């Protein structure tokens, strides 16, 4: 390597670093693109596919969702077939009972295939994504048990802990607690 090449090399290096610095310094004075989760959060798209919301009072226990599921993670136990009461739009209480409706979230792919065939549209994808738990058993969500508490979807652990000091978490927490549904009719268009 001649002395000329040696210094040309140094010059090139310094030049490309200067070009890079120019770009990065420009961003120092711009708005940050990241948010400080969990104090702030990004909004979800209307079609967001999160943890399911299940309306037990409209489920006719037809097993169609369990059959559509590619990983067989929906468990349904029932005593007899259930029917929808045309007048109220809810399940006829004289029919059978849905003993167990559970989804194993250690297997679920969040593919939304279970929501497509449901005749009464009582299972849909919710807006919560952070379901963590301390044991494997807790990952299996018993929706029948939740329904007894008036909930449509499980409450993430961290949400309970943070509800009192982060405003948006409190809002979400109260929504889930009261059994309100995040998905609206226009959110995920039904495929028929």
């Amino acid at each position, binding site marked *: 390597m001649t002395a000329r090449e040696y210094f040309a090399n140094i010059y090139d290096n310094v030049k490309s670093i200067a*070009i890079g610095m120019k770009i990065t310094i420009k961003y120092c004075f711009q708005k940050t693109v990241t948010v400080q989760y969990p104090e702030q959060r990004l909004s979800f*798209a209307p*079609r*967001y*596919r999160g943890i399911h919301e299940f309306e037990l009072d409209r489920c006719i226990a037809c097993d169609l969702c369990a059959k*559509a*599921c590619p990983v067989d993670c929906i468990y349904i136990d029932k005593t007899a077939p259930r029917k929808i009461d045309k007048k109220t739009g809810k399940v006829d209480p004289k029919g059978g009972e849905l003993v167990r409706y559970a989804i194993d979230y250690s297997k679920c792919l969040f*593919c939304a295939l279970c929501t497509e065939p449901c005749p009464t549209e009582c299972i849909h994808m919710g807006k919560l994504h952070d379901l963590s738990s301390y044991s494997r058993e807790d990952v299996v969500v018993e929706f029948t048990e939740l329904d007894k508490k008036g909930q449509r979807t499980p409450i993430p652990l961290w949400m309970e802990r943070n509800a009192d000091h982060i405003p948006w978490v409190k809002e979400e927490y109260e929504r889930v607690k009261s059994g309100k549904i995040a998905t609206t009719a226009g959110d995920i268009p039904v495929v028929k």
Partner: protein
Amino acid sequence: MSTATPPVDPNLKSVSYGLAPGAVDDDIDVQSEEMLVNMGPQHPSTHGVLRIVLRTDGEMVLEAVPHLGYLHRCKEKIAENLAYYQYIGYTDRLDYLAAMNNNHAWSMAVEKLADIEVPKRAEYIRVIAAELNRIASHLVSFGTYGLDMGAFTPFLYAFREREYILDLFEQLCGARLTLSYINIGGVTWDLPPLFLEKLGEFLDYFEPKIDEYNDLLSFNHIFIKRTSNVGVASKELCIKYALSGPMIRGSGIPLDLRRTRPYSVYPNLDFDICVGEGLKGQLGDCWDRYWVKMQEMKQCIRILRQCIAQMPSGAFRAKLPRAMKVPPGEVYAEYENPRGHLGFYIESQGGPIPYRVKIRGPSFVNLAVTGELCKNVLLADVPAIVGSIDIVMGEVDR
């Protein structure tokens, strides 16, 4: 007391790392200065759980043998037990950086087998989704390649733009990575309102960013020094190893299935095939392969602009019965993934589930050339070469 020493396990010596004959002998440390080094499976610069056994002599790598299988999930076997539409969720997890492309390839294969006509609008939506995902995938490839070469900033910039694309995907189908959006007979949901406008905005925002990346990384002198004339794959070598995607185009062979064996609506779209030209060194080196990907992002933008302009109205999904029966027969459908040719071979004996599925993964085939490229190179060049091959282990191991 010699009888008390435990007998040497005869199996011990036959542990083979798959190296050339003579490479493994029990007193290798004494005879020569060669050393076996395990790179991975938990090495920061192997993309995913790839283990490469290197035979080194000081700083020189004499031989490199990739070892696979840490991420094997029996994808092909699972397909034999699932209905065609149920397998879509699994194709997401093959090449998880290009889920749309995998969905598209699988749907195309099944449609070819069952002779399903896809509506025109669905085809355009599919191309939009696939090209967006191609950009997202190339962005990850660009960012992590910078990371391998010791440049951290481009990685953050790449992910910032990728986030925009993932947001668009979230609008489209509700997921960000495992999309399951392209479905047999079309797409699962129609475009959400204002999607095309938002896409146009993104393209306007994104186009100047590519030049910024070029200033930041592509033409950075240090980066060029690290990647040019390293890992040169000649045209013959590429053909011999059946490479595809940016690997083969980087060596100057214009093989792109979107053009050479067009599918979907690509014949109606105008774009160039980017090939390496040996701008910064020999033809087919790491820099050329990298440069092909940067150029391709610009072509993706061109394709997307044309799709927005040409978007027809109409149905977004063909009318299919829920329990779709597929006639007996076999089919092989090829698809241009961001990483190369993705092929699905399906054998059907009638009924709702396939009899056998074989996946031809581009990363898997491209990875095979590692041993050839990493011969007699410096140890520091190995991450450069492996990074430029741009593998996704989810698809290599399947």
